[in-house]
């Protein structure tokens, strides 16, 4: 490590020496070359969901190295809602969200830009029930209705017969249940509440789903941390976190019975499986409570949002920037996916990648089909 750093330093020194020499010689050629090199640099600005931020920023790091610092992808995690809003207001080149663009939003975009906007799945979000029951480790089994009852405040003790029925042989204490939820807007909440909505009409009508909702019971924790902190510190607490966060912090998390009746222990593989369903062409689908038999039921896509007509997005100034954005999109759903597991993300399933290619191939700059061209150049279609 140290020698590498030294090497880097000496390289830098040599580079600096050469640059000074070049400048001293007054070589116009070098100066021009440097200038064009600098001008070829592009900043790609994106913003949105917090959950996929570790993945997308790591992709940005990797992509920057790969392009010799030519392309910088600045991604700021401001939340799914913020991502959609800034995307509509055209202050960013791409948005990112765990909620897809609604029909009304798409109709508005169609009207103002003459084309649609694409929701490109980039990764998967998975949410696991986490809990703190003294003497009980991970692997407690839940099903959808049970989670709805707990979050509605109807089941208030851990030794409730409904919990015991799913967990025969586990010695459940008579501890009261403390429900914990996120207090800030969050994609984790979106996936969690969309699952509860899928399970129960009552939940759908009373609470619904979104990045922040009006919770019937429980206390709020700010961020993944706040929820984790509240759970770790209060025996009897139940909450929800992303799988990678639960693993990272050694929290006990439960398995969930999916719609096919299989008890699924959360894993990146099971999350990828959840998306292994018949996808619509625009990928706008919630697959919480997935019909896939081996799929983990509390999972959803995180989407990248891009305009079909890139020239109509005010945040993109010229064709080169549009081209670089498309290149990055293609890279992030192909080679970029290699980063997934090490960072605690589930890999995009093949079906989603195919749909992405179809959508990217329709991306245009004025009359030029730059998406199609890029994919052809890289032999992807």
């Amino acid at each position, binding site marked *: 490590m140290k020698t590498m750093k030294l090497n880097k330093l000496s390289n830098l020194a040599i580079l600096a020496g050469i640059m000074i020499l070049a400048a001293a010689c007054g070589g116009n050629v070098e100066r021009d070359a440097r200038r064009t090199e600098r001008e070829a640099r592009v900043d790609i600005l994106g913003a949105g969901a917090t959950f996929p931020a570790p993945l997308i920023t790591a992709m940005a790091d990797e992509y920057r190295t790969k392009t010799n610092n030519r392309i910088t992808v600045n991604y700021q995690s401001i939340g799914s809602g*913020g991502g959609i809003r800034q995307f509509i207001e055209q202050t960013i080149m791409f948005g990112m969200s765990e909620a897809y663009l609604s029909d009304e939003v798409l109709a508005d975009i169609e009207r103002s830009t003459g084309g649609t906007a694409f929701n490109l799945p980039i990764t998967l979000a998975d949410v696991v029930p986490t809990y703190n029951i003294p003497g009980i480790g991970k692997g407690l089994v839940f099903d959808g209705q049970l989670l709805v009852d707990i979050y509605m405040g109807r089941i208030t003790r851990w030794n409730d017969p409904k919990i015991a029925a799913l967990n025969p042989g586990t010695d459940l204490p008579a501890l009261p249940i403390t429900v914990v939820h996120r207090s800030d807007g969050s994609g984790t909440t979106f996936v969690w509440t969309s699952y509860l909505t899928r399970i129960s009409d009552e939940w759908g009508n009373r609470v619904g789903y979104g990045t922040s909702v009006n919770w019937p019971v429980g206390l709020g924790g700010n961020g993944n941390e*706040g929820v984790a902190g509240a759970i770790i510190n209060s025996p009897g607490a139940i909450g929800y976190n992303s799988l990678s966060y639960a693993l990272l912090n050694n929290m006990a998390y439960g398995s969930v019975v999916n719609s096919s009746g299989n008890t699924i222990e959360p894993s990146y593989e099971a999350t990828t499986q959840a998306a292994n369903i018949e996808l619509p062409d625009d990928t706008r689908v919630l697959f919480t409570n997935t019909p896939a038999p081996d799929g983990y039921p509390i999972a959803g896509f995180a989407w990248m949002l891009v305009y079909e007509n890139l020239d109509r997005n005010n945040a993109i100034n010229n064709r080169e920037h549009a081209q670089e954005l498309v290149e990055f999109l293609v890279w992030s759903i192909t080679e970029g996916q290699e980063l997934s597991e090490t960072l605690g993300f589930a890999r995009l399933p093949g079906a989603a990648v195919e749909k992405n290619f179809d959508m990217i191939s329709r991306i245009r700059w004025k009359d030029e089909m730059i998406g199609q061209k890029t994919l052809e150049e890289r032999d992807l279609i």
Partner: protein
Amino acid sequence: MEVLSKGDIKTASHSPVLSKPLPAIYRWLGDRIFLTVAVTLGLSIIFLAGAMAWVLIDDGSMAFREFGIIGFLTGTTWDPGVNFTFGALPFIFGTVVTSVVALGLAFFPAVAVAIVIAEYAPRWLSKIIETLVHLIAAIPSVVVGIWGIFVFAPWMRETVYMPIYSWAAESHPSLLPILGNPIGYGMTTATIILALMIVPFTTALTRNAIHQVPKEQREAARALGATRWEVIRMAVLPYARGGILAGAILSLGRAVGETMAVAMLIGNKNTFPFSIMGPAATMPSVIINEFREAVGNLHLSSLMAIGLVLFVIAIIVNLIAAYITRKLSITGGQGI
């Protein structure tokens, strides 16, 4: 008080422009231009205040139209998910309770420090104390916040909240809903931090007020044989009370607007009921948490409307302080 050095006067009187009488145009036009520039710059502050009011009213009007002014101010539901109903009462309540209690906690220690600085400590020591107190004001809110998140809140949880909570759970379970969940992030934690953060303002303003008390007041009291405390009690504090009161109110304004440290520590719970130890929210904290996140126009407008409420409170607080200062005719309401 002679600030101007001799050199300055000399240069002025020997300046070349003065060797012959100045052309009238230079004097007249120069004065005109200078005044215009100064007034324009001054006006830009008036414009700024106006712009702030206009922006907040304009952007917040949608929420007020939708829910009515009273409805918005007294609404207790904050639901950006399904029904898109927004009411500001939890945040107004959170702001009022945290800042009033914080002022209550901060007031006496702050005044005490001011008395020590102004009346008791030898000059060198009072300089040091004063500098240190100013230093508290200089610590950025986020730095206090990071300390609060990682040190103070966990410490409060372990040493204060948990023992109280366990005691209540065993002997007085009926107290539990009032006490709330002892996660460490909550109203009490935020209030204590808030108190710490407004101490320097209260102290500085109190000290200013005490400084305005004429020497004769003290000498007269001392001549009557009063002890040191009696001098302060009977001669100094009554005389300075207007300034101290105005200072307290300005500090309250400061507490109302404090954003980052509170947002980092209060736990951010948007719905009633709030509890003593449990999480809550204030007006600034909900704006900072949700403004970048808000997607619906009505949600955004509601946040701006909360900004407007904050604006109105700030104006009222400042006007009251100005009124008290003028009414009791003791100057020194000037913030740090």
